[in-house]
């Protein structure tokens, strides 16, 4: 892997350590145990196999094949099927084998699920789990970060955790939420980071950002795997006081937290791995430029992927992807502004 996602928390905090992947698996198992209406469906999720990333391994044995349902290759159809299940009060957790394939289910998500409650009161309490993000040499179709399509679509909720604890807490909240929630898992974090995760029921409210580092000079607003790069960049530029806001939920955005941080430092970097152009960072920057204009002491710098498909070869993918150096440079530029 081109990036070190080593998460300081591993050293720092105490207690029970799980990987990002283990935390997700734990949330699913605990919710399936708690609520018989929760089920899992998707390609290869069932049996002993337990999915391409093994997130659902062991669930079939524990909860039965019907609640851990293998589907054919039919994203549009099985996501539409989840819509119907959800209308009847079930809480399907749909696994996209890779986030890249969520585009195959597009109508079932953006046209039906996103609008049913607004139009006629049909609630759709499902969660789509989408293993997203790159940096691990998987090429254009196994590295995508498609969250912006869904953040732009009214009626959806979009979540993107950066730590094991948040992954468990946000997924638990997403499963209990009565709306369609798309849960973007940063697959480069699956096994590369560990963190302290509360053992029992653990809920992190949707729609609440977290300030994961305090600082007075520059704010970095980011989410997912990039939170860890931001941390490393902040460590690297020790003389700059860096506040880091982990959005955690991308829709609805925690506009208050965003604006508060922007007002506090007056200098803002918006960072994500998805391509920069018309990405979620554009909304964050535009929000600040409109609502916190008087507080700005410098341009709002956006850092994100290039406006190309995600290339496969290491030199190209490294050039495509934001790096610690890119972030550090932006921090210096703004600090000196």
């Amino acid at each position, binding site marked *: 892997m081109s990036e070190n996602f080593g998460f300081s928390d591993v050293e720092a905090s105490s207690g029970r350590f799980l990987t990002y992947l283990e935390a997700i698996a734990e949330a699913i198992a605990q919710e399936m145990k708690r609520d018989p209406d929760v*089920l899992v469906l998707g390609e290869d999720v069932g049996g002993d196999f337990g999915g391409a990333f093994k997130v659902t391994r062991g669930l079939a044995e524990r909860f039965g094949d*019907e*609640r851990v349902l293998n*589907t*054919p290759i*039919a994203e*549009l*159809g*099985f*996501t*539409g*099927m*989840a*819509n*119907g*299940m*959800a*209308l*009847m*009060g*079930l809480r399907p957790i749909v696994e996209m084998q890779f986030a890249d394939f969520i585009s195959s289910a597009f*109508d*079932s998500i953006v*046209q*039906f699920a996103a*609008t*049913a*409650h*607004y*139009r*006629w*009161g*049909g*609630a*759709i*309490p499902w969660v789509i789990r989408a293993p997203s993000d790159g940096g691990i040499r998987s090429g254009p179709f196994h590295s995508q970060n498609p969250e912006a399509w869904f953040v732009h679509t*009214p*009626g959806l*909720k979009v979540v993107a955790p950066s730590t094991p604890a948040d992954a468990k807490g946000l997924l638990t909240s997403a499963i209990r939420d*009565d*709306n369609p929630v798309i849960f973007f898992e940063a697959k480069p974090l699956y096994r590369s980071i560990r963190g302290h995760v509360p053992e029992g029921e653990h809920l992190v409210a949707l729609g609440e950002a977290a300030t994961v580092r305090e600082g007075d000079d520059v704010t970095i607003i980011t989410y997912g795997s990039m939170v860890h790069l931001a941390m490393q960049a902040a460590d690297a530029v020790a003389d700059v006081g860096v506040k880091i806001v982990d959005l955690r939920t991308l829709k609805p955005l925690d506009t208050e937290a965003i604006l508060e941080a922007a007002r506090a430092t007056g200098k803002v970097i918006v960072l994500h791995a998805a391509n920069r152009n018309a990405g979620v960072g554009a909304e964050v920057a535009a929000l600040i430029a409109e609502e916190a204009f008087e507080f700005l002491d410098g341009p709002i710098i956006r850092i994100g992927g290039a406006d190309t498909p995600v290339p496969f070869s290491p030199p190209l993918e490294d050039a495509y992807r934001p790096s610690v150096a890119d972030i550090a440079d932006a921090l210096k530029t703004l600090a000196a502004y």
Partner: protein
Amino acid sequence: MEALTNERRVEGYAWMTLTRAFDDTMVAMWKQGRGLGGAFSQRGHEAISVAAGMALGPDDVVAPMHRDLGTYLVRGMTPDRIFGNLLGRSTGPTRGRDANLHGIGDLDLGIIGFISHIPQALPTTLGVAMAFKMRRQPRVALTTVGDGGYTSGATHETLNMASLYQAPFVLIIEDNKYAYSTPLDQQMRSARFAEKVAAYDIPSVRVDGNDFGAVYDAVSVAVDRAREGGGPTVVEADTMRMLGHAIHDGAEYVPRELLESWERRDPVRAMRSRLADEGILTEDQLGAIDRTAHDKIQSAVAIAEAAPLPDPATLSDGVYA
């Protein structure tokens, strides 16, 4: 299956008459400029939509489409609510949010609101059926698709999964000869739908979609099979879209002879004469049913037209549950 007694047939005729009266009135209103946005006439589909509605049990769930007005009515959605939706009133099932018959769902009535995107109702309805199956409930989910919607990918994905999971799922294919302006022979090389679904190992039957009794029996058999764990069934209903795709559409592309031959098979009149010929109802009794239907629709229109438009302050209500 509830046998098709003469009482049921009379009931069916009453629903078909109400459906036709709704349709005639709607078409007239829209032509007079009393409408809002577009509207779809279902003229010619009364036997299918009413029989489908009547063949279902009270706990079953249905996702009717844009030509299935009769199903909504039979399931208990009142004409004034539907007109309210057509006219964008706050009293319609979508409170002015969705257009014409789109989205007029009401789970209390076991009705799923559809979206334009064809054929989204199929996988949704399969999911409803899967919920029944997983909960071991003796309930059935039914939806319909047109000849046009049949060629769309989600139809294939849904039929394959419905068969794979043996879900209590019933699909009525409304073969009404056109998808908008496109005739069957420009949609697929051959249109023997009942044979096509053999590819999914799903039993099917082709019926005269203008014969209420034939549709009722076929759908009832399918619903019973699904309820008893026998899995999905497809009912292919042979019918004709008698007016344009929507009211703005004059359908000049449809050969007049074709319409005339089907006009002779009008499902409402056919039912009416059967009931008369078999001496089940007198002309007076039939006339009374027709007048009742007409009056119900007139008062429904009055209620809908008098109803308020939604308050703009409610624009963002209900985006989230």
